[in-house]
C-alpha cells in the first residue's frame, strides 16, 4: 500500500510540535548537555555508533532534544552529518596498540598483557540504588580527582591480540594484508554478495537491538550455536590524518573510544584442523554490540539457511534510520489505498454479509 499526499493541517502540526515542549516541562530542572555526555555515556556511545558519527557533545544534545529516544537522536545526527563535507580519511587506525581500559578473554585464563576488567556492570548486583537520587555530583568529581592524583603512574604492558598467538600456531588462518580501498556504504549502494568492508561498516553502524537479536537467534540454534569470545577489548585509539603540507607526515587529530571483539568458532573444515574468527568493532563502550557483530560476521562467512546467515537479510534490515523511517511511514495517510482495500473486502463479502 502506498501513502497519499495530503494538504492542510498546518496549524495542528505547529501546535503538535509546541506540545513536545509541554511534555518536557513537567519540571523546572534542566539536564545539562555536559551531564548527559558524561553520565549517560553508554547511551551517547550507542547513538554515535548507530549514527556512524563520533561527536559526543552533539549526540548528547540530540538526546536532550528528543527526550532520550535513541532512534530520533540517530536521525538528528545523521541529518546534521549530511550538511558537512568530508575532507579527510584517517590512516588505518592502530587498534592493536590502543590505550586499553578493558580487556578480557573467555577462551584463555592467562593472556599476554593480562585480563583487565575495567569498568563493567558484569559483577554488579542489579538492584536499584536509591541513594543515587541524592548523589552529590561535585563531591563525586572531587573524590575521583583525588583518587586519580593519589595513583602511582603506571605503563600498560603491550597487549598483543589473543588471535595472533593462534595464528602463529597455524590454528587460525593468517591472511596477508590487503590494501584494497574499502567500500563506503554511506556513498555507494551495497551490492550482493557484499564486500567484507561493506559488511563490517554496515554492522558497525547497525541498530544494537537488531544485531543483538540476530546474534541471539544464532546462539539459540538458528545458526552455529556457541562461539567463544577470544578477546574483547575496549580502549582509546589515536586517529591520524596526512599533514596538509607534507603527505609523508601524519598529524594526530585526537582519540576515540572503541570496543573490539574477536569470537572463535569451528571453521567447518572437513578435518576440524582450524578455528574461524568473527570480528566486531564499534564506537564507544558497547561490548554486547561488538560481540553480536563478531557472531554475525562469522555466521555470514559460514552461510546457511538461517536469518543470521543470510547476507541480504542481515545487511538490509539493521540500519536504525532506515528501519525506523520505514516503520514510521506507516503512520502517514494511506487513505486511498486503504479505501481500495476496504472496497475489495466489501465486494468479496457481498450485500448479504453487510
Amino acid at each position, binding site marked *: 500500500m502506498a501513502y497519499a499526499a495530503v494538504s492542510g493541517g498546518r496549524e495542528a502540526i505547529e501546535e503538535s510540535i509546541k506540545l513536545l515542549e509541554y511534555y518536557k516541562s513537567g519540571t523546572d530542572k534542566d539536564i545539562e548537555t555536559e551531564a548527559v555526555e558524561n553520565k549517560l555515556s553508554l547511551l551517547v556511545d550507542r547513538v554515535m555508533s548507530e549514527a*556512524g*558519527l*563520533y*561527536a559526543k*557533545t*552533539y549526540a548528547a544534545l540530540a538526546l536532550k532534544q528528543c527526550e532520550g529516544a535513541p532512534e530520533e537522536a540517530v536521525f538528528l545526527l545523521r541529518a546534521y*552529518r549530511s550538511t*558537512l*563535507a*568530508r*575532507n*579527510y*580519511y*584517517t*590512516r*588505518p*587506525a592502530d587498534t*592493536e596498540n590502543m*590505550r586499553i*581500559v*578493558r580487556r578480557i578473554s573467555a577462551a*584463555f*585464563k*592467562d*593472556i*599476554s598483557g593480562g*585480563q*583487565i*576488567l*575495567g*569498568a563493567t556492570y558484569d559483577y554488579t548486583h542489579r538492584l536499584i540504588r536509591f541513594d543515587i537520587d541524592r548523589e552529590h555530583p561535585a563531591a563525586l568529581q572531587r573524590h575521583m580527582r583525588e583518587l*586519580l592524583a593519589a*595513583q602511582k*603512574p603506571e*605503563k*600498560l604492558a603491550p597487549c598483543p591480540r589473543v588471535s595472533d*598467538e593462534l595464528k602463529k600456531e597455524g590454528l587460525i588462518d593468517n591472511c596477508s594484508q590487503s590494501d*584494497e*580501498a*574499502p567500500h*563506503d556504504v*554511506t556513498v555507494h549502494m551495497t551490492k550482493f554478495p557484499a564486500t*567484507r*568492508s561493506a559488511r*563490517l*561498516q554496515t554492522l*558497525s553502524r547497525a541498530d544494537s537491538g537488531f544485531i543483538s537479536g540476530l546474534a541471539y537467534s544464532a546462539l539459540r540454534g538458528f545458526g552455529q550455536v556457541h562461539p567463544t569470545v577470544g578477546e574483547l577489548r575496549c580502549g582509546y585509539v589515536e*586517529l*591520524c*590524518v596526512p599533514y*596538509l*603540507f607534507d603527505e609523508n*607526515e601524519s*598529524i*594526530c*587529530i*585526537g582519540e*576515540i573510544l572503541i570496543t573490539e571483539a*574477536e569470537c572463535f568458532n569451528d571453521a567447518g573444515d572437513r578435518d576440524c584442523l582450524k578455528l574461524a574468527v568473527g570480528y566486531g*568493532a564499534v564506537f564507544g563502550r558497547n561490548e554486547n554490540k561488538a560481540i553480536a557483530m563478531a557472531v554475525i560476521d562469522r555466521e555470514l562467512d559460514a552461510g546457511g539457511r538461517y536469518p543470521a546467515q543470510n547476507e541480504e537479510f542481515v545487511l538490509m534490515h539493521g540500519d536504525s534510520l532506515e528501519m525506523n523511517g520505514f516503520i514510521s511511514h506507516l503512520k502517514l495517510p494511506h487513505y486511498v489505498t486503504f479505501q481500495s482495500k476496504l472496497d475489495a473486502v466489501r465486494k468479496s463479502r457481498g450485500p448479504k454479509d453487510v
Partner: protein
Amino acid sequence: MDKRRLTRILARADRRDLASLSADIRKMHRPVIVKAPEKTLVMVKMREPVKQSLFYLGEVLVCEASVELDGARGSAVLMGDDAEKTLDMAIIDAAINKGVFDGADRLLALEKEQEDRLMRENALHLKTMVNFESMDREAPNDLNAFKKA
C-alpha cells in the same frame, strides 16, 4: 619534534594553554587566516585482524583551519568543534614551520603532565587486572599451556 607528537600534545592540551601560547606568538607576529575554522568530517579507516582488510568504522566530527605567518603556512585538524583551539593550533604550527616558536619547553611540560595523567588513569584500570582461578582442573585455560598441548 615530529608533527604527530606535536599535534598529540596540542590535541590533548587544555584550550587555555594553547590560547596562551598562541597569544605569545601574536605579540610578535601577525598571522593571516587562510582558512577560517570550519567543521568537517573525517572517515575512520581501520584494519580488521581476521582477513587483514581495510574497512570504514564511521566518521568523526572535526574542526580544521589554516593560517599564514610571515610566509610560512600552518594547519590544524582537531576532533570536536572548538574553533578557537583549532585556530590556535594552526598558529602554533605556522610559528614552528617558520622557526619562530619559542614555547618548546612549555610543550614538553604539557606532554609530561598529559602522560602522567594517563599513567595514573592506567593505574586505576590496572587495579582491575584479574587472575581467575579455574575450578575445573581439566580446563585448558592458559595460552602457554595450550601451545604446549
